[in-house]
């Protein structure tokens, strides 16, 4: 059963990811991206990370992708068809490097032996969400606070950049 769900979700995710990269209308790219997000959320839940899965749905598929849609509508990009042509010679060097990386990664990842408890923590009394909450507000309190500075900087920055000055 787990295998079936995995293969289904990864097929959907991979095909939509190819669509994200190669489709020519920005609107289609965004819609494919939402499918990728949903597929990944399913995979996260399959990996016993329910909380992250839900955050993925709410934050990514919900908020971030709506932001993309919003900008596409704002800039009137919804009707155009983007040309697909490689940029220059060095684009191909980059693409070649990326594919070479994949070839290098595959045998290395194949050899990975998962250490620690290979099975998910069984018999635990706390849910995944509870564990994350406890860790986030105790051990990882400092990065949590730094993230607030980061978000404030992003808010201030976005307003400055997008504001029209007369």
């Amino acid at each position: 059963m787990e295998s079936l769900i995995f293969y289904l979700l990864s097929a959907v995710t991979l095909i939509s990811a190819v669509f994200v990269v190669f489709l020519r209308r920005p609107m289609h790219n965004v819609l494919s991206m939402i499918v990728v997000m949903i597929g990944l959320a399913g995979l996260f839940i399959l990996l016993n990370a329910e909380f992250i899965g839900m955050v993925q749905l709410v934050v990514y598929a919900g908020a971030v992708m709506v932001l993309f849609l919003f900008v596409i509508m704002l800039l009137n990009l919804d009707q155009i068809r983007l040309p697909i042509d490689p940029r220059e010679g060095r684009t191909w060097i980059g693409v070649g490097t990326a594919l070479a990386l994949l070839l290098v990664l595959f045998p290395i990842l194949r050899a990975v032996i998962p250490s620690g408890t290979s099975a998910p923590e069984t018999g635990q009394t706390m849910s995944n969400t509870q564990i994350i909450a406890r860790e986030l507000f105790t051990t990882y309190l400092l990065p949590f606070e730094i993230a607030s500075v980061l978000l404030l900087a992003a808010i201030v920055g976005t307003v400055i950049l997008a504001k029209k000055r007369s």
Partner: protein
Amino acid sequence: MIPIPEVNLGGILPALVLCLAGLVVMMLGLFIRRGAVATAAVVSIAGVLIAAAANTPLRMMDKQAFAGLINLDAYTWFFNLLILISAGLTVLTSVRYLTDDGLDMYEYFVLLLFASAGMMFMVSANHLLIVFVGLETLSIAIYVLVGILPSSKKSKEAALKYLLLGAFSSAVFLYGAALLYGSAGSLGFPELAKYFKAGQISRMAYVGMGMVLVGFAFKVAAVPFHMWTPDVYEGAPAPLTGFMSVGVKAAAFAAFVRVFFQSMLPAQMNWIEIIWLLAALTMVLGNLAAIVQDNIKRMLAYSSIAHAGYLLIGMVAGKEAGPAGMLYYLLAYTFTNLGAFGVVALVGRKGEANVMIDDYRGLAKTNPFLALAMSIFLFSLAGIPPTAGFVGKFTIFSAAINAGYIWLVVIGVLTSAASVFYYFRVVMKMYMEVPETQPAELQFSPAMLLALGIALVGVLYIGVFPTNYLNLAALSVKPLF
């Protein structure tokens, strides 16, 4: 039952003060109609000074805080100080820039302060998560600052290029971090160090290490990951370019050294060769490309790439002497480059209309003080005694010779000799040539004069009396080993 988190606000007080100053500036900007920039600058400087005071106790500390996520030690102290110096000088050199065209861009200081706070967290990190979050806080603030000039097309273009390549490098860095996590089971530096010491290093860990290295190489602008640098440095406002070339670079180098020396030292044999190659390429390409530039900001951008190469020599040299040399070099470079970019901002005049090297013709006639200051900054960049730049290069080169990297030093010396050519070209233009048209009068502001004065005194003082500062640098790298 809820466990109580470990909180040590005293240790992160410098960064907290900067964040608070940023918030105060933000609030004040809402209520002050005219002269918001001047007020914001005063508050920022006050924040920087208080943060510097709050930073002093760190020098004597050597401990971890926040559940072992950050280090409070002399190394953190040194880099906090360096960040504060560069932030303070940048505030002073930026003031006039932001009042041009009646802009009143006080938000500039808010972002500058937040970026500095992010850097402070980054240099104190004892966990890759803190490096990442600090790095991104700094990067996001800088992306916006680069594109802050509303009327400049180049500025927006630079922001765009920096953002795309910065985000790409972050993604590579993160994938590397993920692979390291899979190998070591945790991303805390002590756990990573334990994993690398145990000896059975998987190939996945090497790939992860390599990708983290690429991420850092992007941030410090090492060849071949430097392509963004000239465009971004050219398009950004000149004072900010100065800040990027010293503050951001220092913070990135600090984290780079911390990560590789504190947690991956046992695998040194594997990464040192790569850094050797990066250093050699960076020095050669940076210096050669600088020779053919006509725009002074682009020239200084390539010069800053070349300096990243010299700093990488310090990393290759290793032991304690190499990193100690880097710390001194970064201190010297902070004063030198901020001074040089201050002059560039001043001579550029309104809207940066005069940023070609030819615009410096005859500067010695019209403004002898400014020409002299610029010459001293350029001498220091070229590494000519008695400036601080000379001592910095000398320290790093001798550390590398002691460690047996003769060829790298040969490349370093040859490329520095070549660099004298393009630095002197500017000096020659200032002293030997006359301008074709009479340029507009320069507008000195008190803040700019103060900044140039501090930079000048810094360059000469730590160049003539380097002993104390060299000892300080040696002391500050102790906690790493």
